[in-house]
């Protein structure tokens, strides 16, 4: 029996109502106001998990965010949330929770065998053992992870919604304990816009478990009075169940509000978000985050029944739970005595207070003496021992502070609960996240906030101030400073009277020496969740680790859900001792967001799916493609028809049909997604001249020209056709994926380098629907569609544009071709896109007009050796590499020109664009395949290049490929080998990249 029980009085729970819930498949009851931890503790549950490495049984240690052991997975299916601290889970009817760290079962754990081998599982064991051979690590890791536990990923989509809100305030107050509450009131009365956020369901912080009085009233009544007044201010926002998890630059903080976690699934409005992430830009920040008690480090300090003294107080005073029948306190400071007083109040037998100091504070000494509790001064607990239900006795020893050794063994004391107080560690996490450096203060044996680097100040416990009256005073002062800094004149708040207490200082005790008789076979845990022991840290020091950051990664100290909230300070002090350094010289590891774990749901918010995460863009003709059964390809954000399979057709059947139809009769492509930029102004041609590699000053209205643009490094960045509409008006097309980048690129040059140019750029991509009618019958189709423009080659030559009407719709018609066929690209107001497409389809019926998708488009252009920027180029390819020197002007400067004359860009063995014909005409090389000179070379085999485009060409009746090959243009006719992933080697002959109609007769016909 654990001896735990629910007290008949006290606490902030509603005993008149019962809540039924399930834990590890068994039904329990609790009361409103309980946490999962308090309700289970009240019913005698002691075992909450198995430890990470040794699978030792573990119980509840804390009562809040710091809890390292009692991790649970709450809820079922899509509602399942892993790795919640049972100490923070509010009870609701029907709650169902499982421990996350007890694989395969809590009581009989196969992993506990690790305990027997614990001497061979030191720090770094997994890495030392399993990192070689490297390939085996993947296999081992799977089993290590499974044995190590830490929750299960939910297997179903999360049905809940999550949202985000942006908010500004004058003063953000973090933490609603005594300092935070009075700070909020002070700031509120000044008229400032205030946010008060606290991670707990109720405001009050430490006051919720306090037995002291404030201003003559019970602490909880004072809390209620302050909160009631705060509610009267319209500019004060009170956020409970809301953890300030991140402190970023320029006073930007994030708050994670849990809005429905405490409700049974049927009790919450389904339209309400489960969690909300507040994104706060705060004028000033007051940190009132309190302090977390540290455990003491001695042999067996992890047994179920060993708890923080502050947690013992909280379970008794706030939840009305006596965690056992008999208790011992082990402390090195005054605050531990409170647990003894509270245990006595709860009717527990307090067997002893063991104080490592020789002189406790006068107040606590007086109070415990009045209760008749024996106090062993200058003593320590050197070991804790367990029976079948966890802790059942502790070993008392006298020790010498000066030598640091045990001096006398004083026998065993029976007890079920051991309350530890190793001192209070201020919660400096947010202060540190803000960029400041906490500094060690030996008077409180803890790290305190250092100099602020942002507009923040710490008050109360997180500032190392532990006396209640002092905390209230600091809260008022901090809020006054914050409000004044925002221009509010605040008068302050009267400090209510608190009990006056005489304290004695803490005396640091980082590690209790082991009893010599134990022969060193001790386990002193520093980090419970990661099973990092004091000897692990010393081992790391012996093996040469000096930085606490490295020791953290070697021993796992400070990882996990609690991020070292309990263990880090003890751990760095023990490292300091091993290295002969003071804790302040060792320093802390970096505190990073988030303070407590945040669900991915909260981080994602509503930025999910195609609507809000990454928008999907569709052309005006999209519904027609869908109806026609097209399969789609994602190009940037666009959906483009990939190919249109007829029933029973494979992809290659469909693509071959589409290609042949276009070559033999007529095809039509929805080209609306190409980027379109309208360029106007007297200097439009000059801008084009500077951006493109070729010359633009002589392009006449009604004429089109193909252009390349380079980065300043000389590498091909984008390409497209630009049309002169009037001397001061051009329409540029870009690649589908490059549209936004090209627009931004030209805007930047215009604004930063050439502000003297009078040019205006407008993105018109969405305003125009574009379709390319291609093939020998395209002219006939346009005629049949009622085109009022003369279409013969004489009056409408290749690379020119005419404006006219087709079927009554105003159109821009351009004779440009990416297929190598006679082609007309028709642009119309996007609102008429579908109408015109339909007109063209109807007119083309007589010619069996065939819609073709991007795959056929790729094949057709590859047959012609036309490159696709981003497929046949990769940011390291110059125009010369592509054999396109003809497009580079010698007579003007342009962006990137100088780079074309660098030694490296002039190299003769650069990778150059070539065609490849495989020996076997049916073999289609995989794109990306590496090319080598000979398959028989010794490794490493020099790579000569790679395949960039590769297809089966129905028109040519064989496979074709484009490739970038070192010095490729000098190797025409020679054989190169593609080395495939499956070790197959495919020989291919290097040829000219133009496979079809090299004289360009067809497009000009």
């Amino acid at each position: 029996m654990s001896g735990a029980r629910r007290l008949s009085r006290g606490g902030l729970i509603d005993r008149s109502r019962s809540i039924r819930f399930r834990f590890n498949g068994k039904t329990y009851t609790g009361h409103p106001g309980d946490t999962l931890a308090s309700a289970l503790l009240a019913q005698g549950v002691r075992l909450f998990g198995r430890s990470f490495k040794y699978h030792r049984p573990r119980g509840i240690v804390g009562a809040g965010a710091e809890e390292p052991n009692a991790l649970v997975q709450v809820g079922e299916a899509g509602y399942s949330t892993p790795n919640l601290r049972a100490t923070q889970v509010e009870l609701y009817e029907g709650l169902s929770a499982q421990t996350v760290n007890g694989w395969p079962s809590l009581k009989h754990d196969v992993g506990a065998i690790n305990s027997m081998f614990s001497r061979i599982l030191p720090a770094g064991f997994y890495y030392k053992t399993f990192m070689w051979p490297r390939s085996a690590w993947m296999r081992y890791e799977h089993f290590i992870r499974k044995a190590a536990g830490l929750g299960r990923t939910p297997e179903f989509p999360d049905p809940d919604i999550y949202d985000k809100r942006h908010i500004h305030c004058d003063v953000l107050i973090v933490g609603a304990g005594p300092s935070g509450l009075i700070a909020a009131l002070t700031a509120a009365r000044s008229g400032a816009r205030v946010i008060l956020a606290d991670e707990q369901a109720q405001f009050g912080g430490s006051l919720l478990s306090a037995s002291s009085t404030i201003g003559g009233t019970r602490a909880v009544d004072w809390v209620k009075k302050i909160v009631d007044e705060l509610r009267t201010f319209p500019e004060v926002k009170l956020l409970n169940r809301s953890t300030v998890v991140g402190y970023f630059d320029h006073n930007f903080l994030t708050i994670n509000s849990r809005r429905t976690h405490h409700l049974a699934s049927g009790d919450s409005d389904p339209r309400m978000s489960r969690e909300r992430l507040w994104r706060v830009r705060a004028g000033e920040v007051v940190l009132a985050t309190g302090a977390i008690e540290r455990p003491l480090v001695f042999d067996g300090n992890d047994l179920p029944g060993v708890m923080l003294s502050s947690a013992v107080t909280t379970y008794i005073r706030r939840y009305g739970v006596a965690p056992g029948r008999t208790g011992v306190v082990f402390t090195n400071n005054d605050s531990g005595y409170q647990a003894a007083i509270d245990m006595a109040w709860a009717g527990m037998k307090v067997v002893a207070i063991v104080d490592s100091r020789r002189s406790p504070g006068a107040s606590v000494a007086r109070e415990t003496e009045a209760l008749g509790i024996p106090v062993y001064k200058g003593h320590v607990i050197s070991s804790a021992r367990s029976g079948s239900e966890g802790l059942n006795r502790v070993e008392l020893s006298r020790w010498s502070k000066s030598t640091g050794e045990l001096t006398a063994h004083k026998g065993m004391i029976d007890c079920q609960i051991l309350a530890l107080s190793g001192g209070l560690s201020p919660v400096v996490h947010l202060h540190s996240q803000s960029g400041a450096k906490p500094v060690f203060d030996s008077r409180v044996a803890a790290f305190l906030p250092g100099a602020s680097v942002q507009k923040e100040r710490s008050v109360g416990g997180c500032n190392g101030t532990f006396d209640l009256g002092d905390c209230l005073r600091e809260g008022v002062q901090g809020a006054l400073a914050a409000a004044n800094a925002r221009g509010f004149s605040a008068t302050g708040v009267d400090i209510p009277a608190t009990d006056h207490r005489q304290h004695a200082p803490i005396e640091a005790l980082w590690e209790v020496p082991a009893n010599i008789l134990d022969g060193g076979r001790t386990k002193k845990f520093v980090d419970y969740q990661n099973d990092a022991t004091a000897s692990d840290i010393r081992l790391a020091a012996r093996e040469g680790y000096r930085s606490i950051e490295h020791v953290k990664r070697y021993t796992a100290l400070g990882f996990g859900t609690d991020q070292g909230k309990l263990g880090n300070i003890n751990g760095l002090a023990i490292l300091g001792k091993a290295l002969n350094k003071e804790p302040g010289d060792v320093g802390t590891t970096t505190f990073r967001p988030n303070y407590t774990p945040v669900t991915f749901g909260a981080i994602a918010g509503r930025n999910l799916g195609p609507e809000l995460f990454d928008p999907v863009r569709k052309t005006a003709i999209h519904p027609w493609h869908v109806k026609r059964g097209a399969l789609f390809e994602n190009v940037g954000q666009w959906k483009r028809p990939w190919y249109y399979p007829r029933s029973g057709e494979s992809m290659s059947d469909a693509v071959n049909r589409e290609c042949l139809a276009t070559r033999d009769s007529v095809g039509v492509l929805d080209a609306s997604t190409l980027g379109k930029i309208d360029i106007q102004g007297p200097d439009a041609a000059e801008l084009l001249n500077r951006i493109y590699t070729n010359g633009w000053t002589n392009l006449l209205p009604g004429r089109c020209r193909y252009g390349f643009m380079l980065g300043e490094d000389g590498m091909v960045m984008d390409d497209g056709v630009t049309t002169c509409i009037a001397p001061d008006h051009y329409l540029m097309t870009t690649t589908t994926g490059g549209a936004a980048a090209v627009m931004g690129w030209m805007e930047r040059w215009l604004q930063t380098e050439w502000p003297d140019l009078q040019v205006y750029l407008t993105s018109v991509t969405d305003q125009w629907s574009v379709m390319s009618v291609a093939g020998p019958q395209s002219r006939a189709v346009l005629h049949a569609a009622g085109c009022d423009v003369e279409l013969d080659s004489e009056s409408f030559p290749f690379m020119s544009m005419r404006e006219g009407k087709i079927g009554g719709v105003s159109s821009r018609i351009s004779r440009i071709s990416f297929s190598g066929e006679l082609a007309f690209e028709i642009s119309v107001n996007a609102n008429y896109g579908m109408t015109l497409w339909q007109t063209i389809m109807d007119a083309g019926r007589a010619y069996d007009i065939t819609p073709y998708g991007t795959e056929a488009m790729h094949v057709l252009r590859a047959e012609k050796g036309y490159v696709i920027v981003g497929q046949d180029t990769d940011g390291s390819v110059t125009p010369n590499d592509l054999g396109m020197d003809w497009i580079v002007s010698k007579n003007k400067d342009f962006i990137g020109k100088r780079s074309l004359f660098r030694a490296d860009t002039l190299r003769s063995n650069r990778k150059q664009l070539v065609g490849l014909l495989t020996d076997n005409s049916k073999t289609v090389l995989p794109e990306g395949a590496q090319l080598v000179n000979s398959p028989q070379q010794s490794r490493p085999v020099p790579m000569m290049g790679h395949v960039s485009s590769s297809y089966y060409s129905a028109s040519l009746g064989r496979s074709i490929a484009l490739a970038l090959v070192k010095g490729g243009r000098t190797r025409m006719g020679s054989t190169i080998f593609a080395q495939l992933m499956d070790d197959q080697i495919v020989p291919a002959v290097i040829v000219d990249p133009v496979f079809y109609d090299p004289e360009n007769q067809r497009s000009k016909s």
Partner: protein
Amino acid sequence: MLEIECPWCGSRDQDEFSYGGEAHIVRPLSPENLNDREWGDYLFFRDNKKGQHAEQWCHSAGCRRWFNVIRDTVSYRIVSVYRSGDSPSGDPS
């Protein structure tokens, strides 16, 4: 997340801006007269300052204007913000 004062629109979250690297790198007027080292300096080499750094930002999800920011790379404090073509003091240069 930084809070940046766009000289055209006012204070906005960093989310609305894009970063453009070091400011006041003037494109050489006659690149063809530069040797490879000089062109390489313009093209690739940037100061990696500890302290006050002049850099370009664009209000890309707002007015789409480029402007200059002097930012302390240690504290991330923004010392001043000024329009393209202006000097750090805010006067047209």
